[in-house]
């Protein structure tokens, strides 16, 4: 069989696998980046010593634990504290002063992974003196990462990078004020968790659950096709109050979406947008 034929069959098998996952478990990956899905699935085929994607499909249907492995393969959870420090600096300088004018603030982190981004925000708000009147919703569709996020314990070998980022992000204290080290881990201060609710939410299949001042969704939409991105942008638009802020990852953009005219650009480089009044 020639290469083109093999590739065609691989694509058909992947399509069927994604249908099977959706039908059986309700997770919908059908509009994710195809290159990303294919790469992860093919790696799983070789790592689990199976012969084909069809064998993966069979195993996924009959073995829930194996499905959890596939779910982890497809949801990229790589994250860090104060990722893209200049983003947090901008947030601190341009957005926080406006947030301070509200008596009560609600922030939604969509696709929060293991929580580093959420705690970065909590630290920033604390240092700016508004954490106590903030409610943070941190959501992800992957239960395992949410569990880790709730714990707020990270390997000590990451602290160097986190500290570097924190300083670049305009942190006003010492980063070590915010955690205690124990063996080879660091435990973030309990006080940072006080106003955070971690919850399961799937951006593809779930709906609006709160009205918020800020939506932060970084490095999630790069895995979605245009159609799915537009669905999620609608969801964010419905969730934001007038004058609320939408923050995306450094390589994501609202520019090509149907929702673009509903926002003004606060920072093109940092991907911060403000929902217009009267919308």
């Amino acid at each position: 069989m020639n290469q083109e034929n093999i590739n065609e069959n691989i694509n058909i098998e992947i399509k069927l696998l994604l249908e099977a996952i959706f039908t059986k478990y309700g997770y919908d990956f059908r509009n994710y980046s195809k290159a990303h899905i294919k790469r992860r699935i093919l790696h799983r085929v070789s790592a689990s010593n199976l012969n084909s994607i069809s064998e993966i499909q069979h195993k996924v249907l009959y073995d829930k634990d194996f499905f959890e492995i596939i779910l982890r393969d497809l949801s990229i959870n790589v994250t860090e504290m104060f990722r893209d420090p200049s983003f947090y600096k901008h947030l601190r300088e341009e957005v926080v002063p406006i947030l301070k004018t509200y008596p009560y603030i609600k922030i939604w982190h969509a696709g929060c992974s293991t929580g580093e981004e959420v705690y970065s925000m909590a630290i920033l708000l604390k240092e700016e003196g508004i954490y106590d009147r903030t409610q943070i919703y941190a959501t992800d569709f992957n239960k395992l990462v949410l569990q880790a996020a709730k714990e707020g314990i990270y390997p000590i070998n990451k602290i160097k990078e986190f500290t570097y980022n924190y300083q670049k992000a305009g942190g006003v204290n010492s980063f070590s004020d915010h955690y205690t080290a124990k063996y080879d881990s660091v435990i973030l201060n309990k006080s940072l968790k006080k106003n955070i609710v971690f919850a399961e939410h799937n951006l593809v299949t779930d709906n609006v659950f709160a009205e918020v001042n800020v939506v932060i969704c970084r490095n999630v939409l790069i895995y979605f096709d245009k159609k799915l991105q537009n669905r999620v942008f609608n969801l964010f638009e419905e969730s934001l109050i007038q004058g609320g802020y939408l923050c995306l990852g450094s390589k994501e953009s609202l520019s090509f979406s149907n929702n673009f005219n509903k926002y003004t650009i606060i920072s093109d480089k940092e991907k911060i947008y403000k929902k217009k009044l009267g919308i």
Partner: protein
Amino acid sequence: MQYQAIVIGTSAGGLNALKIVFSSLHENFSIPILVVQHISSHSDNYITKFFNNLCMLNVKEADEKEKIEPGNIYFAPPNFHMMVEEDKSISLSVDKKVNFSRPSIDVLFETAVYAYCPALIGIILTGANNDGAKGLKLINDNGGLTIAQNPKTAETRTMPQEAINISKTNNILDLEEIGKFLNKIDKDQKKILKNLN
């Protein structure tokens, strides 16, 4: 064969090497080029600025979902993997490092194989690790054209040497020859297209 894309991977010494290759490409060179240059995750976009000033083609940092068009050179952004979709657009990912690298050459090459092979040219230039060797082999196995910089004249020889060992590519060229080689391919395939029309 009408080649539809060129993928290039390099690390240590890459900027100088790419400079030599890119500045020799002729003005209307039309096969799109995708590049992974290993680089610190905190760097800004000076690379694309640097290359834009010294070559005739349009050099840019890739955006997510961007359509791959002739006459462009796309660089993977620092700290993102760059992948090619089968509809010939670019996807980015913050997935784990591969071969200690993000962006990784293997990730680009592997996905480009599905999108383009056999109409794909893969090139490995100077560098200090073995990222890209597997990817080059995959391109070779799928009927694409593969080139490695001559390790003897490379600023750092490990990467092209590993690529040659693993992929068994027959095209081992000095930097000065690579640009010429690509120009000839581009010119020849334009001629064939013209004769067809």
